[in-house]
Every structure is written in structure tokens, then in C-alpha cells.
């Protein structure tokens, strides 16, 4: 009974007191009955209050009771200062929420181990060195024959698993008329047993499903896809689906659904459909690299010898493969063969999203942390100012015997209360904002989907963060409050300067971090601006792209007929064709040789287009002519300025010829018929590439028109919003000729914008946090200035009475703060300069030393300081010396 009753007594304080009271009354009544004098009996019982206190104390747990009292008191304090409390809670909530949100993203993408057996034994293989384009790089894609050799070599020490890149693929169920997209991944059959993944329904692949090319047309659905697409229909087993791309046969039978927890090995992309690697028609090609190689290393195996063994196999394979290669320069061959194999731990899986966003997320995390520190400094200052206002109360408590620790506890409890309220609202913010940020990463066609669980990892982080926050902002004010000297306070004055020194220090800190956040935000915003305002060399205006497939592949003549049909649609201005749209992010490159020379070290980039493509895209022709009907691949070519400069020495390129070396060893001679203005081909961030446009009509060796499987219709519409025509054109393509399907419609503008998704994300979030940081720092400044004026009202009044001028008063009020701001700015500048190299890889054509990159944060902070300072200065100037002196 004892402990529990003492705990429960804490929460029934009033009731307990009544009990005690009643017992005492009964006692007195009894005494009177026994003939004692009521007065005397009451006196004998002692001072009722003290009695009650003593009895109360033994019946409750002391610390818990005082905690309860402090909570009630703290709550009243928070309610009393509604505005400051709300400001404190809001700023902390924002900061805590942003931190938790950042943690959720980073955890989901980069930290959380895959839900497989022994993720710590998982490695990913890659090669690094010089590429075929003679630029240094790292590649994690492999050719299947090489993979088989490596797997055999590592047999006893590790299990090698092939997982293709997840690709958004056109698939159909039953009828060919409804094409939909799904994330398809080719995986080694032994992936599921090796990872210890169980089926949720049916069965999963085994090694037997992955032995012979094209032998096992089976598909396993992911739990997520099964839920989304089929509503967990158990009858999905046995259904067939048609995957068009790169597949033997193309018809797959669904045999099972994988466990819920396993969503693939690529964080950021959820797999919908798994198929065995042997169903990919690249498994026999030694020149196609299309999957990642993951290794599950057996316990106790040393990594380095294993890596060396795999490297030897890879080397031998490449040397053999390239031995007959004539289309590459000797230098390129030597460089490529010098590539080394790397084996990196990959407990969290491997994905392009990780590579692309790890840096950006780290930078954002640091920004968010800065905002948190600013918020903490801010609230610490608020608490200090409040504590100052309560100095008398504290002094009184000390003088009637409250212990120091008791006061620390009292102030800390208030801080904890504040932090808990902030953490709760922060949790709401994080719950909303993390998926929101992921949705910002989404390219329109290929949504990024990150599983963002709110489990013990996130909860633990939140609690730890809240505790740290309490210590950061609550401890110092608590210790200061407890160290009041009752005598000096009750006499009416203490040393306000020490308290102000601390507050000024906090301001300097806030300004430094604020500067840093603004500075980095400025770098990101400028990067985004430079990239998105960059001239691409072509027009995006009113351009609609219809990515179209035909089943079976059809002659380019039929493709022309479909294009003609589209031209007759009202609202369509021009229609052209290209293998793919510019800036789609894909490319086709080869070495070329000029004047019978050796293959070039630099690669040229190709794109097949129809006549009129240049005009549709508004790429100016500088010399020569555009393609005409009748121009065929490989005899005619239009090159860009960079190509002319790099390969043809700029001297009148029209009429010159060059030879392109193909994969199969054949050499194709092409003649330049025109020169076009430079336009970006694959990506905005890379330098201008040497580009060759070739005719879309492709004549093969036997003199037949080569059939095309996919193509993009580039439509310039009359209306300003090209998407308005999308659904109509989609139907028109299908109507124009059977077998043609539009698999994807987007605008060129979308494509251009998808080049800068990461930059936009960084710029938007950094701008947001910069604004928050500025606001917090401004509020902090205002609070401190206001407090210092309040503290010095008397002094200022006396000075004014003695004839101080307005400027003098303003200077006195702001001098300390101005100094803090200057110190903070300088520190922030130093921090910014030091941190720039960590974000360099995220920047584009921006330098930390650019005048405007430095000027913007400086001016912004200056402006904020001025705005924050004006009310305090006005308040100081409005002090009426006469009234002040009268009070004295």
C-alpha cells in the first residue's frame, strides 16, 4: 500500500488535506468531550498548518509532490506569459519538427538496415577509374556473363546477387489496350532465400527459376503493389501480365507476393514486380551492363582478399571482351582496363536516390540543426528575461528556505513543460512534413516513394532531441535563477550586466548561425536560379511529348503516317519525331574517326530525329540544310557547333565526312549536311556535348527499313497549355494505326524542370529555413533589447534628466547588441567559408566569394536588426525622466 498510496496521494492533495483536517477536528472534539478547554486543546495540537504539512509530507512522496506542484506552477507561469510562451513553443516546435522530419528522411533513406537476414554482411560491388568517355567516375553496373564468373569465383566466401535497376516499365494485364506503368526489377532467383524473405502469398523464386535464359516466365509482386493494384486479392496467383521491354516472350505468370517488410534493395524506390534475371534479354550480352551486384559475405571471410579475387575476374573478363575492339582509342582502352573493383558495405541497400540525395540531406540536416540551436538560444534568452523579472520571487523563496536544487527543479520543470508541448506540436509537423518533402522529390512520371515508419527509432530520436533541447535552453537559465543572492535582490538591485552578457552571447550565437543558414540558403537558391534560367539552346514553349511504343516494332514509314495523322488534329501546330526528347537524361554515344584517323578519345552523342525537328524545337540552323524526306541513317548527319569545333576544326563543316564505329564492329560513314546551334542534350549540369543528329529513317545492311519499337512525337501546340491536348492526342495515336500506344505524355517544360528537382528542393527548403532562422533571430533580438531597456529605465531616465541627447540614449541602448551582432556576423562568415567545401558538390556556377552571395545575408541580417531594434529604442526615448525620478 505504501508506495502506491504515496504516489496516488500526490495527486489527491486537497482530499488528503481534508482527511487530515477532519482527523484533527475529531481529536479536538474528543478532547473537549473529555473536559478539556477547547482553546487549550487546539493549542496543544499545535499550529494547524504546520501539523498538516508534517502529516501531509509523510503521506506523499516528497519529490513527486514538489514536481506536481512545480508542474502546476510552471503551467500557470506559461499561461501568464501567453505571448512569450507561444513564441517559444512555436519556434521550438518548428525546429524540433524539422529536425525529426530530417531524421525520418535520412533514417529511411540512408541509415535503416534493409529488412533482410544479416544486413551487416551486405556489400555492393562497383568499378572506378576512367570511363569510356575518359572521365573519372564510378560505375556499379555489371554485365551478366561477368557476374556469373564472379559468382563462381566467390562461391565459398560470398553469395553474389544481381538486382537490376528498378525501371518504370509499361505493362499490361490481359488486353493490350490498357497500358500501365509499374516498377519492375530483375533479381537473382536466390535473392529471396538468401535474404530470408518469406512469401505473403504463393511462392517466391528459387535458384531453379534463374538458371536458363527465358526459362522461367514468373513474376513475384511486392506486398505494396499487391495492396495498391489488386486490393490484396488472393486470386492474383496464376494471372498473367505482359511486360513489353527487354524480355524473353514478355508474358509472365504471377506466382507469389513477397513479405510486407521487403520493398526492394533500393531505398527511395518501391519495387512493384520482381522477375528473374534470366528473363532479361541482356543476360547473354557481355557488353550490356544493367544491374547492381550485391554480395552477402559469409561470416568470418576477409573482405580484401575476396575483393582482389573478384577484381581479377572482372579484369580478365574486360580484357577478353575488349581484345577485339577497334572502335575505341588505345588510350581509352588502357584507361578502361585499369579500372578497379570496390566493395562497399551496403547494409541499407544501394540506390541512385541515396547517391543523389545523401549529400543534400546532410546539408539540410545541418541547416535544420542550426535552426534548432537558434531556437534554443532564443528560448534561453526568453527564459532568462523571465527569470530576471522573477528575481524577486526567487529571492523570496531562497530567503524563506528554498534550496538551490529546488529552484533549479522549478525552472527546469517549466522548461520541460515547454519542451514537451513543443515536441508534441513538432511531432505533428514532422508527421506532415517528411512525406511532403518526399513528394517534392517526385519527378512527375516516377514518384519517389520512401517508407517513413514512425517507430521506436524515430520516437527515440524525438525524445533524445527534446531532452537535449531542454538542457540547451533550460539549464543555464535555471542555474542562474537559482544563484540569486536574496540580499542584493531584495535590496532592490543586482548586477544586470552579467545576465546581459549571457544574453548578448546568445544573440551573437544566433546571428552567427542565422548568417550561416542564410548564406548556405543563398548558395542553393543561386544554384537553382542559374540552372533553371540557363539557356538550353532550344524552346520548351508549348511542346508536348508523346512517348509512344508499337507492338510489334513497326517501320519508320508507319511512324511517319501516325505523325501525319497528328498534324491534322486541330490545335496542333507542328509534329516531329525523335528517338527521345532532349534533356530526358538518356544518351547514345560512340567514338568517331575523322579523315581515316584512329577512333576519337572523346565520344560523340547521337540522336535520331525526323525532318523538321530543328524547327519544332527552334534550334537555329547555322549552315547547310535540315533533313529531308529520303535522308537515311547512316548517310546524313547534322552536327552542333561543339562537334564542329572539337572534331572538324571548325573549318566549314558542311560536306565533311566522319566514320562512326558501331558495337558490332561495322563502320558507318556519315556526311555532315548541316550545322546547328549548340543545345543541351542529356543534362544541364554537364558541359555542352558534341552532338550529331541522324535521320530517324534507318536503313539496315540488307537495304530494308529498320523497324522502330519506340519513338517520341514532339508536338508544338497552338494553345499555351499543351497538356490540354494530351488525352485527345493519346487516343489519336492509338486510332491512327493499330499497335501504337502512347505510354507517357509530358511537356518539355516538365522534362527541363525535372533536371533541377534536387536543386529546387534544396533551394525551397533552405529558403524556408533561412526565413525561419531570420525570424527567430529577429524575435530574439527584439526580446533582449526590450529587456535591456526595461532593466535600465531608471538609469536612462536619470541620464535624460541630466541632459543626455536622443542619439546618446539610442547608442547606449543598442551598443551591446550591435557589438554582439557584429561578432556573430563575423563568426557566421567564418563558419560559412569553412563549410562551403562540404556543399560544393551541390552547387552550380556559384562561388562562396561572390559579392551578392555574401551581401544578401549581411544586408538581410542588418535589416532584421534594425527592425528588431526600433521598438526598443523608441521605448527608451519615450521614457519620461520626470516620472522616473518621481518613482525614485
Amino acid at each position, binding site marked *: 500500500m505504501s508506495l502506491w498510496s504515496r504516489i496516488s496521494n500526490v495527486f489527491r492533495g486537497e482530499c488528503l488535506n481534508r482527511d487530515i483536517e*477532519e482527523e*484533527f477536528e*475529531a481529536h479536538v472534539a474528543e478532547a473537549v468531550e473529555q473536559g478539556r478547554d477547547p482553546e487549550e486543546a487546539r493549542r496543544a495540537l499545535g499550529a494547524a498548518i504546520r501539523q498538516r504539512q508534517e502529516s501531509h509530507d509523510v503521506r506523499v512522496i516528497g519529490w513527486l509532490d514538489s514536481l506536481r506542484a512545480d508542474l502546476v506552477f510552471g503551467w500557470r507561469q506559461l499561461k501568464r506569459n501567453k505571448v512569450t510562451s507561444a513564441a517559444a513553443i512555436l519556434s521550438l516546435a518548428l525546429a524540433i519538427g524539422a529536425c525529426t522530419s530530417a531524421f525520418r528522411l535520412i533514417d529511411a533513406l540512408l541509415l535503416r538496415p534493409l529488412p533482410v537476414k544479416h544486413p551487416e554482411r551486405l556489400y555492393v560491388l562497383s568499378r572506378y577509374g576512367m570511363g569510356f568517355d575518359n572521365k573519372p567516375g564510378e560505375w556499379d553496373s555489371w554485365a551478366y556473363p561477368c557476374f556469373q564468373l564472379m559468382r563462381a569465383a566467390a562461391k565459398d566466401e560470398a553469395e553474389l546477387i544481381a538486382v537490376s535497376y528498378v525501371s518504370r516499365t509499361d505493362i499490361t494485364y490481359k488486353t493490350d489496350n490498357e497500358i500501365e506503368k509499374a516498377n519492375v526489377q530483375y533479381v537473382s532467383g536466390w535473392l529471396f532465400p538468401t535474404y530470408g524473405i518469406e512469401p505473403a502469398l504463393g511462392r517466391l523464386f528459387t535458384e531453379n527459376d534463374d538458371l536458363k535464359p527465358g526459362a522461367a516466365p514468373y513474376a513475384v509482386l511486392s506486398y505494396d503493389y499487391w495492396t495498391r493494384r489488386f486490393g490484396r486479392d488472393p486470386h492474383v496467383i496464376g494471372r498473367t501480365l505482359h511486360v513489353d521491354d527487354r524480355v524473353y516472350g514478355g508474358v509472365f505468370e504471377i506466382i507469389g507476393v513477397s513479405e510486407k517488410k521487403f520493398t526492394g534493395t533500393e531505398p527511395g524506390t518501391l519495387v512493384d514486380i520482381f522477375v528473374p534475371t534470366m528473363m532479361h534479354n541482356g543476360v547473354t550480352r557481355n557488353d550490356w551492363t544493367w544491374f547492381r551486384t550485391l554480395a552477402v559475405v559469409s561470416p568470418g571471410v576477409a573482405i580484401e582478399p575476396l575483393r582482389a579475387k573478384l577484381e581479377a575476374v572482372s579484369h580478365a573478363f574486360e580484357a577478353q571482351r575488349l581484345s577485339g575492339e577497334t572502335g575505341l582509342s588505345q588510350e581509352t582502352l588502357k584507361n578502361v582496363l585499369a579500372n578497379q573493383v570496390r566493395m562497399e558495405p551496403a547494409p541499407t541497400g544501394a540506390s541512385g536516390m541515396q547517391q543523389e540525395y545523401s549529400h543534400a540531406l546532410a546539408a539540410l540536416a545541418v541547416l535544420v540543426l542550426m535552426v534548432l540551436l537558434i531556437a534554443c538560444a532564443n528560448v534561453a534568452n526568453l527564459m532568462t528575461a523571465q527569470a530576471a523579472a522573477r528575481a524577486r520571487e526567487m529571492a523570496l523563496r531562497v530567503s524563506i528556505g528554498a534550496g538551490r536544487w529546488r529552484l533549479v527543479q522549478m525552472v527546469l520543470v517549466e522548461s520541460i513543460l515547454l519542451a514537451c508541448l513543443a515536441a508534441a506540436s513538432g511531432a505533428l509537423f514532422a508527421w506532415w512534413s517528411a512525406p511532403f518533402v518526399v513528394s517534392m522529390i517526385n519527378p512527375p512520371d516516377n514518384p519517389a516513394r520512401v517508407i517513413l515508419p514512425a517507430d521506436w527509432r524515430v520516437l527515440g530520436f524525438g525524445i533524445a532531441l527534446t531532452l537535449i533541447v531542454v538542457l540547451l535552453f533550460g539549464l543555464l537559465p535555471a542555474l542562474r535563477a537559482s544563484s540569486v543572492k536574496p540580499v542584493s535582490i531584495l535590496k532592490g538591485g543586482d548586477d544586470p550586466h552579467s545576465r546581459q552578457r549571457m544574453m548578448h552571447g546568445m544573440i551573437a550565437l544566433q546571428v552567427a548561425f542565422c548568417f550561416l543558414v542564410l548564406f548556405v540558403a543563398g548558395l542553393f537558391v543561386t544554384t537553382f536560379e542559374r540552372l533553371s534560367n540557363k539557356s538550353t539552346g532550344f524552346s520548351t514553349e508549348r511542346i508536348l511529348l508523346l512517348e509512344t511504343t508499337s507492338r510489334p516494332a513497326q517501320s519508320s514509314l508507319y511512324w511517319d503516317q501516325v505523325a501525319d495523322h497528328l498534324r491534322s488534329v486541330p490545335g496542333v501546330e507542328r509534329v516531329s519525331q525523335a528517338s527521345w526528347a532532349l534533356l530526358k537524361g538518356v544518351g547514345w554515344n560512340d567514338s568517331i574517326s575523322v579523315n581515316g584517323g584512329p577512333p576519337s578519345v572523346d565520344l560523340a552523342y547521337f540522336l535520331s530525329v525526323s525532318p523538321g525537328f530543328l524547327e519544332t524545337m527552334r534550334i537555329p540552323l547555322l549552315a547547310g540544310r535540315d533533313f529531308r524526306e529520303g535522308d537515311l541513317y547512316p548517310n546524313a548527319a547534322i552536327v552542333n557547333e561543339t562537334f564542329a569545333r572539337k572534331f572538324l576544326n571548325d573549318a566549314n563543316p558542311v560536306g565533311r565526312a566522319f566514320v562512326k564505329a558501331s558495337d558490332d564492329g561495322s563502320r558507318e560513314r556519315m556526311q555532315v549536311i548541316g550545322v546547328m546551334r549548340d543545345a543541351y542534350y542529356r543534362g544541364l549540369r554537364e558541359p555542352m556535348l558534341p552532338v550529331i543528329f541522324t535521320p530517324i529513317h534507318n536503313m539496315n545492311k540488307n537495304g530494308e527499313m529498320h523497324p522502330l519499337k519506340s519513338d517520341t512525337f514532339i508536338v508544338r501546340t497552338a494553345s499555351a497549355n499543351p497538356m490540354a491536348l494530351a488525352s485527345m492526342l493519346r487516343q489519336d495515336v492509338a486510332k491512327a494505326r493499330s499497335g501504337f500506344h502512347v505510354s507517357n505524355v509530358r511537356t518539355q517544360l516538365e522534362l527541363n524542370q525535372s533536371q533541377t528537382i534536387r536543386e529546387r528542393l534544396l533551394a525551397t527548403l533552405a529558403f524556408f529555413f533561412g526565413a525561419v532562422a531570420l525570424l527567430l533571430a529577429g524575435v530574439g533580438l527584439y526580446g533582449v533589447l526590450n529587456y535591456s531597456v526595461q532593466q535600465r529605465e531608471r538609469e536612462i531616465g536619470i541620464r535624460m534628466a541630466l541632459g543626455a541627447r536622443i542619439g546618446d540614449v539610442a547608442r547606449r541602448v543598442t551598443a551591446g547588441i550591435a557589438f554582439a551582432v557584429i561578432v556573430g556576423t563575423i563568426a557566421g562568415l567564418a563558419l560559412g567559408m569553412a563549410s562551403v567545401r562540404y556543399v560544393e558538390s551541390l552547387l552550380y556556377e556559384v562561388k562562396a566569394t561572390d559579392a551578392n552571395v555574401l551581401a544578401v545575408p549581411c544586408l538581410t541580417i542588418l535589416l532584421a536588426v534594425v527592425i528588431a531594434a526600433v521598438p526598443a529604442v523608441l521605448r527608451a526615448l519615450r521614457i519620461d525622466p520626470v516620472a522616473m525620478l518621481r518613482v525614485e
Partner: protein
Amino acid sequence: MPKTDSLQGSLDLLVLKILSRRPRLHGYAIMSAIGEMSADVLRAEEGSLYPALHRMEEAGWIRAEWVTKDNGRRARVYELTAAGKRQLVAEESRWVTVTSAVNRILRTV
């Protein structure tokens, strides 16, 4: 109040002993019983009796209950618990040890 402190050890013992003989007494009755049984030599102060009662209650040696007496007044009566009985034995033997030790000193000097 040094008197309270010095009495405390024996006050617990006296209360426990009295309650073991006469269960279900209220505070005033316990106080009177101490006076009565010690022939008015010992007297428990109200100021220390009630905190002691509440402390012992929290310790689980005694338990309390509100009862309505014949005259209609409510009273809080106390009785020993099992733990209280054990405590009484322990306190008694401690008391005997201490007093006999003190007596020995008094005799030798």
C-alpha cells in the same frame, strides 16, 4: 524541538504496543492510553503523535479506517497490520537491549 526527536523511537513502540492490546483506537484515545497506562508519567504530544501515526501508516505497520462512533461522530481508528506486529517484536527487543545496556552502565558507574 529536541523532545519530539528523542521521543520518536519510543513513541512508535508505545503506539504499536497499545494498538496490539487494544485495536481500533483513534488518535486521541491512543494519546490518553499512553498517559493512563504509564500512570501519567509519559505523555505523547499531539504535535508529534499525528505525524508519527501517519508515518507508520505509510510504512505499512498500521492501517487506518474511518468509522462512525455511537455519538454519530466520524473518527479515524488505527489497527496493527502483520508488518506492524513484526515491527513491534523487533522494537520491543531493541528496547530491551538498549535499556538493559543503559541500566548496566548506570549500575557500574
